[in-house]
């Protein structure tokens, strides 16, 4: 049997040269007439080690990284196929501290299996959750998801089971499952990784959701900035259809469910669920007023479950191992695990899935190893462009929906972006307004106009024009946006702005002399 060499096809690994490496590896193996098969797996999520390759040996998997195409010859000469020693050797991947400290439930297979091999998927526990669900009454599936404590991983944190229950109880000939894969928040890439690295888990989660609420059709609304994920998901849907996971008889049962991948067109606001539905229907991505809730009147006015990728991808493990198993992880009302995405100026960036409750400080100092630049950490933005900037003084905040809210922040989609002491927080506050102005759908005034006024106010502060009254104005503007906006884009832009202003006031009072000297 030929040896398997795993070279990630994840776009993060590809951005660091994995495709060139795979081509070079194939050539080198051929030239030496060596019997080995290259598998393009997902990423394990240790991006500072990407491209991280793994070889399946008798002793288990052996990892090397970061590997460049120019390392291939020396690796093969060092006995790569038998897991031979090399300066790039990392040993057994699961023993790497970054992985060993994680609890991988949703990401259990990501980086381990061939993303498009159903055989791999089944061998690693895939489809057990769906098989269990098929044997259950819809109400029992919904109850199990509710009892697991799973909350929406897209950012809002709404209990998934409650949402499903509403759709189950809604009247309608046709219901839908819509997966929100419009992962536009900077610092987040968990959706991308799972779609590229374990697409069947998302498909399985959507089918279970369909059976639970009586929906027979699903859509994944996937952003156009993710061409690799689009390719993998499309192929995975075809494979699932051929295998009878999708279609008129799901795994031979009486349930029907089919799904399609729909590609966005570069509008951040379409990550908001009602704007997403508008977009999916073929209109401008303008936010809808609620009520009616999408659960009652969603896609095409019909009852619709709309869930984030990670929420849906967490359902199979809940249906496989039980509500208690999942709920036993976590703290307070934040149950289960959360895939934290560590990004920006960090030494060890990547995906870290763990039970809720780790502190921000543990993640930044301990797990991420501080900044890549080696300079002190100044601020950490948690939860994307609409998330608050946290100073070191708040590093004891545990990862928990309520704990973050209590500190005027949010977990959001659990991306954390680290900035070193060169960061200028007035500039970051200005950017938050600028981004809101670029991406505003234009429906409500606080967001549409407020964002532009915010940029102007920030510029006046920078120019030293009546800074004190401008700061008062900025605070007032944030208050208006927070309470007057229709959705989270305008409503949450105040989080980064006000946190920057509250925790880093010195950056908002630049010395006029140094300004003049520039």
């Amino acid at each position: 049997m030929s040896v398997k060499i795993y070279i990630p096809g994840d776009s993060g690994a590809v951005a660091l040269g994995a495709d060139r490496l795979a081509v070079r590896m194939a050539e080198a193996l051929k030239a030496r007439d060596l019997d080995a098969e290259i598998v393009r797996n997902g990423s394990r999520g240790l991006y500072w080690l990407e491209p991280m390759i793994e070889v399946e040996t008798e002793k288990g998997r052996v990892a090397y990284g970061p590997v460049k195409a120019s390392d291939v010859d020396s690796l093969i000469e060092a006995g790569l196929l038998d897991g031979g020693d090399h300066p790039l050797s990392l040993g057994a991947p699961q023993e790497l501290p970054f992985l060993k400290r994680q609890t991988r439930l949703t990401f259990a297979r990501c980086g381990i299996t061939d993303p498009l091999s159903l055989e791999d998927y089944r061998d690693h526990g895939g489809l057990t959750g769906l098989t269990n669900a098929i044997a259950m009454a819809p109400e029992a599936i919904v109850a199990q998801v509710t009892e697991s404590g799973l909350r929406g991983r897209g950012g809002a944190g709404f209990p998934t089971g409650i949402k499903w229950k509403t759709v189950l109880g809604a009247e309608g000939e046709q219901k839908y499952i819509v997966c929100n894969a419009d992962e536009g928040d900077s610092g987040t890439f968990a959706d991308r990784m799972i779609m590229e690295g374990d697409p069947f888990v998302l498909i399985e989660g959507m089918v279970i959701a369909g059976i639970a609420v009586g929906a027979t059709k699903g859509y994944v609304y996937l952003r156009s900035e993710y061409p690799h994920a689009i390719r993998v998901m499309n192929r995975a849907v075809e494979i699932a259809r051929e295998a009878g996971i999708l279609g008129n008889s799901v795994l031979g049962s009486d349930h029907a469910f089919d799904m399609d991948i729909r590609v966005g067109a570069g509008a951040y606001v379409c990550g908001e669920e009602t704007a997403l539905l508008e977009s999916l229907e073929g209109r401008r991505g303008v936010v809808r007023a609620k009520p009616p809730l999408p659960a009652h009147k969603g896609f095409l006015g019909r009852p619709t479950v709309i869930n984030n990728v990670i929420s849906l991808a967490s359902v199979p493990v809940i249906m496989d191992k039980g509500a208690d198993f999942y709920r036993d992880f976590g703290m307070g009302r934040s149950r289960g695990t959360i895939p934290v995405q560590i990004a920006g100026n960090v030494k060890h960036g990547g995906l870290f899935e763990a039970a809720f409750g780790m502190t921000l400080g543990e993640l930044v100092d301990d797990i991420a190893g501080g900044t890549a630049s080696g300079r002190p950490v100044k601020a950490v933005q948690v939860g994307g462009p609409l998330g608050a900037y946290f100073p070191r003084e708040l590093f004891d905040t545990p990862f928990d929906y309520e704990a973050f809210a209590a500190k005027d922040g949010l977990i959001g989609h659990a991306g954390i972006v680290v900035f070193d002491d060169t960061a200028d927080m007035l500039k970051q506050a200005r950017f938050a307004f600028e981004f809101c102005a670029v991406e505003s759908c234009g429906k409500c005034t606080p967001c549409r106009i407020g964002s532009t006024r915010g940029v102007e106010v920030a510029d006046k502060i920078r120019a030293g024009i009546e800074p004190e009254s401008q700061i008062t104005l900025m605070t007032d503007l944030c208050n208006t946006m927070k309470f007057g906006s229709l959705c989270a884009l305008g409503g949450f832009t105040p989080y980064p702005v006000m946190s920057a202003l509250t925790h880093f006031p010195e950056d908002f009072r630049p010395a006029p002399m140094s300004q003049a000297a520039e």
Partner: protein
Amino acid sequence: MESRSADTDIASRTEAIVGRLKPLEGPLLPILRDIQREFGYVPQASLPVIANGLNLSRAEVHGVVSFYHDYREAPAGRHVIKLCRAEACQSMGGDELAERLLGLLGLDWHETGADRKVTIEPVYCLGLCACAPAAMVDGEVIGRLDAEMVDQLAKAVQA
């Protein structure tokens, strides 16, 4: 005369796309995506055809086209550089690299050079935040951009 025949050509190719995708639930975005793939942009001449095919007003179709950042009104340059401007890339010096690249190309955001060799566009997150700063060049992703890579990139796209 020539432009009229070009418009006729656009109309008939648009009609084929509309005909193929019309049965979808919510067909407009898939149609526009295919049109942009076919022509490299969304030509004005295709709008009435789409409107007619989907029983929409031309204004409604225009409204959708103009809403989304992806749709182009005119063809892009031979190379398209999308440089991420979001926070994770900022934290790794993305702003300075962007300034450098714009300077080297002599372009501002969304512009295409007079020689039509390159178009430069901002993008807000490519999901490569753990290997920032990131860019996408002609669909290929690049991580951990630095000044040297930016210089090489500017040279390569202008060659």
